[in-house]
């Protein structure tokens, strides 16, 4: 116990903290400029000086650790004089351009000057001049305003880990610059911007457009981009979003954001948004009215249902939509249309992996707190770059590394280049071999665990069968490190699911998780991939992960929903596509998804969907899929409606409405309108009504209310125990017998700056990453005689594209990466697929590609 006195107030602490922190806890505010709660103490500005009895000089509260019996005074005439002096120093070279500066009104320096009012006008010399830099598209840099607190640099280096900016020069020549001294060319998280106390770094998205006091309101909500689910604050004026800012006391991201979350918000106010329903007339989509469009959907689906039965209808729902939307969607498919043919595009990644892991390891196995990553001894990273797929989760890995954790990477992961202890590069597409070998060896060392019979026997069989591996460098060290550690986290990305034998990796990772008692994190590219499953948008699962095949569960839902649920499992995503192609599926309802672009072999998908008798698409943009629909229904999007989403930790969070729009309807409302017209009434007035029902019928959501969720810590298992048992046997699969001996293979890039095609509607993200490049490793460059910036044509068996080459040292195999974020220029359309018999995901590995220099 430490007892000290600050301003005559006695304070008792159980652990030593800084005087600044002790004062804060006692409700005493000490002025600061260089200090920031997210950063380590610095001690540069000297504004936080305090008097401490028995200490000769004034002390800086932000750096001084409390000691028992310390007597501190934070305000006195002498202290004020010092602070005035400091502020005067800061102002001598500061352009007094507050009336013009965008920071005015939220500038820490301005506030401080207001409070301590330094003597002005004593500086009769010439000020330092540094021209403002507008050479970056996103961040404006005004180094005359910079007070060299280094908060930005420390944020970028110590927290974000990008280390893209530095203080250049020394003494009074110090200024913050990115390496190029012009464009930042960085991760564009903008976290430097958040911590800059003055107007030295500003976002060009809002510069000169408003002043903080002109905002109408601020709404706390959750990012629409990925499965991390960062909290952020949307600042609104005249029903339009002016700015997105994080808050350090808010959400799991604690003040950090990535480029998408911070700068990607403009898509929602894109002029390309769908405004009215469209109906296909004489082969063309024409503007229509809600009543015509809704009736038409109801009529067409009703016809198919009565003619061919519910099983001729299929629905694809969306991990971009809320839980409420998805819940209503599956209820509509099951109750109104009479089918279990419900799936999502997440089948190609998250959903397959999630189901596989839960089947073997038990429900909730992936429900781990992102924050917990920091406390791991070892983090094993598989199947993609977490720092790009789920950037803010990636920061926790970097943080863990800084704290001494060993980060073991299998495969390429650019964002961890400076944050890895070792990297094992499997031969191309041979990750499963490496993981199986690893499992066999760990099993050899640890033996059977004996808690999960299916896994135990699966592992035993695997080890009897054996696995060939081709002597990857550092494999032994990888194994040793895992065996020597206690607290292991495994971070699993979508890449390894997208294999025709993806289940092999899934099994191996299940086994590793089990034997090593690891925490498993499943990366998630979309904001609500987990929620979609929990809401029941799966062909074999009811809400709450209840297996459809169990009659007792079905009965319960039938009672609540007042009708019969078809008893057979429905079709998975690609079965539906096949069904559409071969005529088994006649009608399809797609909510918030764009399979034509987001699935491999898009041309084939498109033909299949075109073969449908009827296709309804509900979206916020006229996507490639919407373009071939018979009816297009405009939905409301993020910040235009309220609803919940569930992140990859299984934390349920609220996306709140922040702006009013005249166009579109909430997804759940559109569906209930259609449903009513088809004779099954859904009487929800508000999203909250849907949540109320979910809380009643789904054991997963029991007792959840928006109020409860709003507190931010509704993590699985909210109340209950597991809802679904584990599998008794491991599903049978088969290894692919294939050699990968071609020169180059095409893979899908998952860029940090884009997410689906949504980000393409955000001008800021388009400025950061304006066009797709063909990303190749140095080995590929050498082999192909290619240089950075070369224009090439690359072709696969199904098509070709032109692009510029970008060489990236972090790509260590002969895969070449191309993004699937630019309409008309996607990578997936160039790839064909083979379905994994176990997961029903599409394997897109081994897509050979020829590269020709133009």
């Amino acid at each position: 116990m430490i007892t000290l006195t600050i301003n005559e107030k006695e304070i008792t602490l159980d652990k030593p903290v800084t005087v600044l922190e002790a004062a804060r806890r006692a409700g005493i505010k000490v002025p600061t400029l260089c200090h920031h709660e997210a950063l380590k103490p610095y001690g540069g500005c000297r504004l936080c000086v305090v008097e401490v009895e028995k200490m000769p000089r004034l002390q800086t509260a932000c750096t001084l650790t409390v000691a028992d019996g310390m007597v501190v005074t934070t305000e006195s005439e002498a202290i004020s004089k010092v602070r005035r002096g400091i502020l005067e120093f800061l102002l001598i070279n500061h352009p007094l351009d507050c009336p013009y500066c965008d920071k005015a009104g939220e500038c820490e320096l301005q506030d401080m000057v207001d409070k301590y009012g330094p003597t002005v006008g004593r500086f009769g010399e010439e000020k330092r001049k540094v021209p403002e830099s507008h050479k970056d598209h996103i961040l404006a840099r005004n180094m005359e305003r910079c007070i060299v607190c280094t908060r930005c640099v420390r944020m970028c280096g110590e927290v974000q880990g990008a280390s893209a900016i530095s203080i250049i020069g020394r003494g009074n020549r110090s200024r913050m610059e990115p390496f190029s001294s012009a464009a930042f060319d960085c991760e564009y998280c903008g976290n430097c911007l958040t911590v800059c106390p003055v107007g030295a770094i500003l976002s060009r998205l809002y510069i000169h457009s408003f002043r903080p006091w002109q905002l109408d309101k601020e709404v706390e909500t959750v990012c629409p981009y990925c499965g991390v689910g960062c909290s952020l604050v949307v600042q609104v004026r005249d029903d339009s979003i002016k700015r997105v800012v994080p808050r350090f006391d808010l959400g799991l991201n604690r003040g950090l954001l990535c480029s998408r979350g911070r700068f990607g918000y403009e898509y929602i106010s894109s002029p390309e948004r769908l405004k009215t329903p469209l109906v296909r007339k004489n082969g063309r989509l024409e503007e229509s009215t809600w009543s015509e469009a809704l009736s038409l959907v109801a009529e067409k689906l009703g016809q198919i249902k009565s003619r061919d039965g519910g099983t001729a209808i299929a629905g694809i729902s969306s991990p971009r939509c809320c839980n409420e939307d998805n819940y209503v969607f599956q209820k509509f498919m099951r109750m109104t249309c009479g089918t279990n043919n419900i799936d999502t595009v997440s089948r190609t990644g998250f959903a397959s992996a999630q189901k596989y892991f839960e089947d073997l390891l038990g429900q909730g196995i992936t429900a781990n707190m992102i924050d917990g990553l920091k406390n791991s001894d070892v983090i094993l990273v598989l199947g993609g770059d977490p720092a790009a797929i789920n950037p803010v989760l990636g920061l926790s890995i970097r943080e863990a590394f800084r704290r001494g954790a060993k980060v073991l990477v299998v495969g390429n992961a650019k964002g961890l280049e400076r944050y890895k202890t070792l990297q094992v590069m499997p031969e191309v597409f041979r990750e499963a071999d490496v993981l199986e070998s690893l499992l066999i060896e760990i099993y050899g060392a640890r033996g059977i665990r004996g808690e999960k019979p299916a896994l135990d026997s699966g592992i035993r069989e695997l080890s009897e069968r054996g696995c060939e591996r081709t002597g990857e460098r550092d494999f032994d060290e990888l194994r040793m490190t895992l065996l020597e550690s206690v607290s292991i986290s495994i971070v699993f990305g979508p890449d390894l699911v997208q294999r025709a034998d993806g289940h092999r990796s899934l099994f191996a990772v299940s086994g590793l998780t089990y034997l090593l008692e690891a925490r498993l994190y499943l990366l998630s590219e979309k904001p609500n991939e987990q929620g979609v499953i929990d809401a029941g948008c799966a062909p074999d699962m009811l809400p709450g992960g209840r297996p459809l095949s169990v009659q007792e569960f079905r009965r319960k839902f039938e009672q609540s929903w007042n009708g019969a649920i078809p008893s057979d499992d429905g079709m998975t995503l690609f079965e539906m596509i096949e069904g559409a192609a071969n005529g088994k599926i006649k009608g399809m309802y797609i909510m918030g998804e764009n399979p034509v672009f987001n699935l491999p072999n898009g041309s084939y998908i498109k033909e299949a969907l075109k073969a449908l008798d009827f296709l309804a698409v509900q979206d916020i943009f006229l996507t490639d899929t919407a373009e071939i629909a018979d009816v297009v229904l405009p939905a409301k999007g993020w910040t235009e409606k309220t609803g919940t989403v569930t992140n990859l930790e299984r934390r349920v969070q609220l996306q709140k409405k922040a702006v009013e729009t005249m166009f579109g309807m909430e997804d759940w409302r559109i569906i209930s309108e259609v449903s009513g017209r088809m004779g099954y009434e859904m009487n929800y007035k508000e999203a909250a009504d849907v949540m109320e029902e979910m809380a009643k019928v789904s054991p997963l959501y029991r007792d959840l209310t928006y109020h409860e969720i709003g507190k931010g810590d509704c993590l699985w298992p909210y109340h209950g125990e597991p809802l679904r048992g584990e599998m008794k046997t491991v599903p049978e699969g088969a290894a692919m017998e294939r050699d990968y001996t071609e020169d180059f293979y095409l893979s899908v890039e998952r860029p940090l700056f884009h997410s689906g095609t949504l980000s393409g509607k955000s001008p800021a993200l388009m400025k950061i990453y304006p066009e797709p490049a063909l990303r190749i490793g140095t080995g590929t460059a050498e082999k192909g005689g290619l240089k950075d910036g070369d224009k090439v044509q690359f072709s696969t068996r199904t098509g070709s594209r032109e692009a510029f080459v970008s060489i990236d040292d972090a790509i260590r195999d002969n895969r070449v990466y191309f993004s699937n974020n630019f309409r008309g220029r996607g990578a997936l359309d160039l790839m064909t697929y083979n379905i994994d018999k176990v997961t029903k995901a599409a394997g897109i590995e081994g897509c050979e590609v020829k590269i020709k220099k133009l």
Partner: protein
Amino acid sequence: MFNDTVLKEIDDIRARYPERRSALLPSLYIAQKEFGHLSSEALLCVAKTLNLPEADVRGAASFYSMYRHKPLGRHLIQLCTNVSCMLLGSEKLADFISEKFRVEPGGTSADGRFSFVIMECIGACGTAPAMLVDTDFYDNLSEEGIVEILEKYK
């Protein structure tokens, strides 16, 4: 990129410290020698070789006054004008050098022969005024002495 000899040299330096970042200052000296000055390319090479963030490399390089960020003349005159040297007239010598060899402090002569910088104390105050030409020390300087010394540097 650096050639193999240089890479080897840097590797050897790295081995002497528990962390690779410590090899930064020595590597910057090497890069300066290889490239003449610390151009962006030079800094990138160092960053790559040591796997350090580029901005950190530039930030560190820019802190120290003995790294050169612009191309230099063939020879570098570094004259001290700190107090002890100043007390013995080094400021006048600075003017003399500027005039005689047509090179401003901080600049390079038009013929590219000399670059000239004013230094802080170089630890030769007992034999002030003093200067370094490239890595050679000269002290007890006078105008005639300087002319004679600089004659040797073509």
